[in-house]
């Protein structure tokens, strides 16, 4: 018997992701990959996979799937409400806790709570096509597994190499929210008036609905540009904060356009990226200036924390 999931409802933005692909920015292909790396590696380590295995990433409303096949473990990470529907009963699931499912069981990933992305991993492998070493779906360039498209209603996901050792695991971890995003000054920081710089580091911004895997738009007081609202097009990376002609910031995320022409006021530090992407539309954030050396140390700390969490799942 083939093991698989039938997708009954795909959800709003459900894709396969892993660490993404490198060395392609120069031809216009961004790295893509999971938005929230910590939740990604925790999902894989809880089900006993290698931490760089493909997982299902969903945003807001996740998928409803029916499982067919031999007993298997799964886990959901993030801050997510979900149910496991068995033949005779249902249970509400907890994130960071593994569950086993059998032929005919359904998993209903209802929604993320006050966050954006969640991760769904199984003790096995999704049978996927890789492109440039990664399954990560980039829907704009139609690259990655599933022909570069989001998962669709009534499609099937094949599963291979099921791990038959079924160990229940649970991790005590709560996703903390972060209201202050730490930022290193950007290469065009001096394009902005003193008042504009002050506003950027002192006022609150609201995450706009126009946010997706490519970028996050923010709304707030106008950041005044006193030099030029366009720069000559140049490379972008994830975390760059550009200010468009209307005075609002846009933060580049994992599926960023590789080249852009708006001034860069700042760059989000690597240690805060996972938390940044979880800010949902309507929520508020503030930026805090930080020096390069401090950002590097914070990243080391963040890595140590992540590794500690991984070791707790072993």
């Amino acid at each position, binding site marked *: 018997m083939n093991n698989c999931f039938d997708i009954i409802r795909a959800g709003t933005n459900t894709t396969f992701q892993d660490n993404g692909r490198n060395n392609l920015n120069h031809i216009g292909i961004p790295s893509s990959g999971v938005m929230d790396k910590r939740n990604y590696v925790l999902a894989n380590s809880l089900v006993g996979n290698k931490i760089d295995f493909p997982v299902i990433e969903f945003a807001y409303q996740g998928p409803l799937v029916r499982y067919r096949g031999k007993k298997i473990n799964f886990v959901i990470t993030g801050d997510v409400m979900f149910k496991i529907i068995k033949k005779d009963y249902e249970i509400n699931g907890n994130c960071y806790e593994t569950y086993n499912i059998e032929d005919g069981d359904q998993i209903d990933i209802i929604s993320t709570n006050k966050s954006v992305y969640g991760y769904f991993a199984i003790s096995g492998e999704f049978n996927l096509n890789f492109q440039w070493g990664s399954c990560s779906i980039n829907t704009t360039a139609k690259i990655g597994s599933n022909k570069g498209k989001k998962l669709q209603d009534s499609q099937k996901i094949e599963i291979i190499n099921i791990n038959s050792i079924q160990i229940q695991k649970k991790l005590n971890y709560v996703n903390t929210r972060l209201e202050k995003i730490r930022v290193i000054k950007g290469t065009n920081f001096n394009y902005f008036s003193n008042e504009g710089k002050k506003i950027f580091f002192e006022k609150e911004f609201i995450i706009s609905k126009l946010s997706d895997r490519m970028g996050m738009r923010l709304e707030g007081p106008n950041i005044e540009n006193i030099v030029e609202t366009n720069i000559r097009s140049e490379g972008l990376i994830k975390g760059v904060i550009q200010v468009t002609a209307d005075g609002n910031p846009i933060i580049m995320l994992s599926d960023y356009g590789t*080249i852009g022409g708006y001034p860069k006021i700042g760059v989000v530090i690597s240690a805060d990226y996972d938390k940044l992407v979880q800010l949902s539309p309507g929520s508020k954030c503030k930026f805090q200036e930080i020096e390069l050396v401090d950002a590097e140390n914070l990243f080391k700390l963040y890595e140590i924390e992540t590794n500690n969490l991984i070791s707790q799942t072993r």
Partner: protein
Amino acid sequence: MIKNISNLGDAALYCDFGEDVNKEVNSNVIKYFKNIKEKNFKGIINLTPSYNKLIISFDLKKVNFKEVKKIIENLDINEFKSESSKKIEIPVCCADFFSLDIKRLEKKLFLKKDKIYENFFNKEYFCYMTGFIAGMPFLGDLDKSMRINRLETPRVKVPKGSVGLTEQFANIYTFESPGGWNIIGNTPIEVFNSSKIDNPNLISPGDLVTFKQISLTDHKNYNE
């Protein structure tokens, strides 16, 4: 040759080659890009060359800004022999159906249609960079009489294969995408093909490109 190296966040180098945009400056950018790519330095994960900048991003788990900066500063760029650039001919159909902005071009450039096409097709272009969307080449320089600003309101959808003009550059839309360039024609050629793993891009930075005018029938039959 690099005027200044600074950090772009905590995981990238921002190499500035100076304010001017011309082939000489851009050739330097491309030389550095190819050289660094070939050397395959530990921790460097992406290179994004543009007109006069090169962004080098790295894996902060393996290296840091200071270390990568040192590598780049100590590069002996002269030992690198650049491979000869490719010459590529791109067929373009300028039938009214494809030449979406020809009326705007006539009006803004004060040139008749035929003169616009003559100026456009009689030149060889240099690929400064590729990107924005996968595989899109930025080609220059257009004849001085052909330089025009972006559309005031960008199109929500520019058809795949569209050839656009803005300022000193021409580009090709490798996918249907939003965009504000002035569309002069359309090519039936696949400029980006993601199934070609090693070389998905037809045109790479440093290549030389000419455009050849084709009829609507040729355009239709091109892929048959």
